[in-house]
Structures are given as C-alpha cells and as structure tokens.
C-alpha cells in the first residue's frame, strides 16, 4: 500500500542520518515530497509503497530513534457543494494530482497530493482546504 508520512525531527536530531539508516535497514524506498529544516528542528513529508508490516517496522525504527512519525491521511479536503468544477486548480498542480474527468468534473488524487497548497489559493470558490 501507498502511504505518506510526516517525520518530525526535534531539537538535536537534525544532524543525525536517521532517515538514511531507516532506508538502509528496512530497504524501503522513500520519496521526499517536502522538507523544511532549520538549526533546531526539521520536518519531512515522504511517500512510500510497502506492505503493512514493513511500514510498521519502518515507523517503529524511526520512533525508536527519537523522531516523531505520523501517517498523513487525506491532506486535501474539497467541499463538493462549493466546487463548481471550473478547473482553475488543474494545470497548476505540481504533481498532477488534479485532473479533469471525461464529464468535466474535477478529480483529486489523494495519493499523489503533496499538500503544497497551490490549489487552495487558486480556487475561486474557496472550496479546497488542507488538513
């Protein structure tokens, strides 16, 4: 299954190669979608595809080393009553997570979404929010 993780490095953990260790140990390939980092703390959003027990192992590994890990479910919330399927959000999505269906309704692919917020700003109906 495909999951997205938010990995938060508290103060003092930033300089340790924890993620690299986790990848080498578990053998799970990860794709970093977003990374914010300063001298005190850091936050990563990573997506990966693996079986459930393997994901559990990865999460456990990371937690044992002191970083906070949480699964991200449904970053994007679309108010279908507000949405008019105009398409203003479609061509600006950096990861092509939004597309026009055959019937001209807008479709959001939660799996692909990286939570950048471009569609939130672009929506004239303010129908999209990030959670």
């Amino acid at each position, binding site marked *: 299954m495909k999951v997205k993780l938010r990995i938060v490095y508290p103060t003092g953990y930033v300089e340790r190669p924890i993620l690299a260790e986790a990848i080498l140990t578990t053998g799970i390939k990860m794709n970093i979608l977003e990374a914010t980092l300063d001298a005190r703390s850091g936050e990563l959003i990573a997506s990966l595809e693996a079986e459930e027990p393997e994901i559990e192992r990865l999460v456990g590994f990371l937690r044992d080393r002191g970083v906070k890990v949480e699964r991200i479910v449904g970053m994007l919330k679309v108010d279908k009553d507000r949405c*008019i*399927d*105009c*398409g*203003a*959000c*479609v*061509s*600006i999505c950096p990861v*092509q997570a939004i*597309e*026009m269906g055959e*019937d*001209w*309704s807008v479709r959001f692919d939660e799996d692909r979404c990286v939570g950048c917020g*471009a569609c939130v*700003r*672009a929506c*004239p*109906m*303010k129908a999209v929010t990030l959670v």
Partner: protein
Amino acid sequence: MGFVRGEESLRTYEEINEKVRRGDAVVMTAEEFASYVEQAGLEKAAKEVDVVTTGTFGAMCSSGAFLNFGHTEPPMKMYRCWLNDVPAYKGLAAVDAYIGATAMSETRGFEYGGGHVIEDLVSGREVELRAEAYGTDCYPRKYLETHITIEDLNQAVLLNPRNAYQRYVAATNSTDRTLYTYMGTLLPHYGNVTFSGSGVLNPLCKDSGFEIIGVGTRIFLGGGVGYVIGEGTQHNPRKGFGTLMVKGDLKRMNPRYLRGASIYRYGTTLYVGVGIPIPLINMRVAKTAALRDEDIWTEIVDYGVPSRNRPAIRKVNYKELKSGRVVVNDETVPCSPLSSIRMAREIAETLKKWLTEGIFFLTRPVELLPTDTVFKPLEVKRREPRVRDVMKVEVVTAKPTDDIRAVAKLLVNRGVDHIPIVDDKGVLVGIVTSWDLAKALALGKDRLMDVMTRRVVTAGLDDSIDSVVSKMSRYNISGLPVVDDRRRVIGLITADDISRRLYRRFLP
C-alpha cells in the same frame, strides 16, 4: 450583402413557439447538434432541429444588481451604503443601490465581495445593511443599521453590463515568476495555459452572425429567466469578441448558477450562468450553431507582458484547449479552464428541458445587435513622468577592479547610496550600495568585484515610474541604474528621486 440579417427562411419564431406549446419542438444542446451535423449533414439537421441550446458559466466581472430597500421610518436618503461591509453604489434615488460584483468588503478584502453578497441574497441568507446620509428636511434620518433578506427588497434586479463573451484569449506567462491574474495562476516559463469560455457551447459563438440574439431575447440567466437588453460593453463583433448586456429578476434566480468568487491576488467577482436558445431560423444560423470546438479559434496571449497589447504566442482552437495539453514554444504544457464546462453543459441541458417541457418560449428580438462597433483604448492625454524625467543623469560609477576604500570615500564625498559598476565601455556589470561596502570593509575584502551584485535590476529611459516602483518593491531595492539598449549606464533612479517628485506634485 445578399441577405437580410435575422430572416426567418427556415422557420419563424411563431412556428417554433407553437411546437414548444404542443411539446413537440425538436431541441438539441449545441454539443449534440454539432455531432448530429457531423453525422447527418447540415441540410438534414437544420431541417429537423428547431432550437439549439447553449450555456456558459464563468467569472463575469461586469455584473451586479439593482436593489430597492424601501423606506425606513423616519425616511432616509442614503448617501453611502454597505451590504455585509461591501460598498454599494448610491448615486441613485434615496433607497436604490447597485451592488457590483467586484466591489470588495472593507473588512474582509479579497475574501468577500459584491459577488458573494449577490450569492447570499439569492440563497435567502440575511445580509447586513448599513447606510449613512447627511439628512434633509424630507429625509431626516442620518444613519441606519439593519439586516435584510431578498424577500424584504421591493426589487432585486440582476443587470450585467457585460456578460457571455463570444470567446476569450487563453493565457500563459513568459516571465520567471508565478503571476496571479484574473486568468488564474500562471506558472513561470510558460508553465501552463488557462482559458475561459465553453467553446462549442458558448452562446455568442453559436450566433456569430448576430442574427437571432438581440434586444429582448429571452434567456436562461442565473437559473431564472432573463433578457438580453443590448450589446455588452466592449462589444467588438468584428474581432469576434461580441458581448451581451443582460438583466433578470434576481428573486427568481438560483444560487447554483450565481456564485461569488475570489480570484487570488486579483479580487472578487461573480460566476454567472447564461444560456441562450438559438432558433434555427435560417441556414446561416444553423451553420454557426453547428460549429465544433475545433472550428472555434482564439489566441494564447502572454500575460507576462504588463501591457494592454499583450503579445499573442499562437492561435489555438477550443478542441486543443479542452484536451488538457497545449503546445507552447515546442513544449507541451498543462492547460485547464477557469469557467466550468460541466456547469455550461448543465445549463444547456436545463434550457433544453424548459423548451421541451413547454415552459420557456422564444422571443424575436426587437432590435439586433450592432455588428460594426469597435473597442477603443483609453489614451492618457496628460503627460505622465517617465524614468527620463525623474532620473539623475550624473552618475557616480566605478570599475570592478577599484579599491573598496576609494569607492567608499567617493560614496561619502558625493553623498550617494548606489554606485553602478561599469567596464571600460561603460557597460553595466554590477552595482554596490553603501550597505555592501560597509559589509565588505567589515569582512576585509579589497576589490569591488568581490562584493558587487552582478544581477542588476535596471530601468529603461521610457519606462513608467509605476514599473520602477513595482520593481523596487518586488526586489526590495532602492535604486536602479538606467541603461540604454546596449546596457550602458545613462542614469540612476532612486526611491528618493521618486518621492521628491511625488511630493512636488502635491504642493500647492
């Protein structure tokens, strides 16, 4: 011209309405008709089909509503008024007002505007009304605060000076930064294309000869019934940019088809649903009604050029625009609409339903729209200052190899903050400011070339002061070298120069 515009050689309005009354009018949406013509041929299709329905649902900034509030006790001649903090136009009689779609809330700004007020009214929601007056013998009240719903109003009339553009240009962006425009978010380096209008379903596209849409044409407007009351503002039929002025009873409209919108970093507007029935009164009308997406052309225009004459990149038809991918400068880029094609389709279907159910009848226009008006620009007749009028001509420059201490001395002696760095031919290669020099001295650097900024933001002689000010704020700088077409320094313009100039303008 060998024909009379609007001639009813195929069928008359009365014949069509008689069939609508009996419930056997043959009605197709523009999409259905276009494919039927492809399959059966124009002759046969035009003979069989009585009416083709169209629809569009997009941001239409030139929209608004006339409202009559009724009189308070004691009465008031409202001089200024606000609906949910959005100012409404009060240059009318005591309790008449016009709320425009792009007026913005004085407390919530871009988030909420006149378009949202109209949507709230149509939805039956309470709207706060605040008004001020100077008080007269006949209208003593000076202040009012209350709330209203659309039910309380005597009249609520949607009257839109410009709706339903025949077609619109598609937008892209050549610059290196993201632009936020009324054409939506435009990514840098031609990163995407946005377009508006429903192409094959677009009302005026289907009557591009202006033979059936005119003053008095009954239409679908905002989910209710409306009328065309004339050509819209900026109506430009010769260039294929016809527009319509429309009105309708807001009280009978449906909030599904009137939606307040805020366009990021642009402002507020109203999405309006418009649908127009196209009676196939002659073969020319049938032919335009049969136009497909691939027959309807527009241009992709570069919104990176902040001018009223934005350059066109290429021609494009609605089939390509609707495919989601468009080729711009040999690269395929994503493309998406801003107006809802799904809703446009729904409007055309609704109008078709009204006609087949016999609850909507066609009207013959009292007068057809002009086909020869032009869209003129506005020339600024008072001369505005340009860079050449404000800049300093005597510029203190230095060479990249100059010693920092010498340059620092120059800066102090001449009382300047910016020193453009030029090569032997006077060509700009960098710039240093007093701050750069202070930093250089603190870090113990010796030569200018080690501390100067190499990517210099510049101005041209005839640039507007507005464009210089926007560069200053965008790049957080206070001075720009003025260069000629070979990048030789011919002047310097600073924030000080501009503020001094402004100050002089306001002196008595």
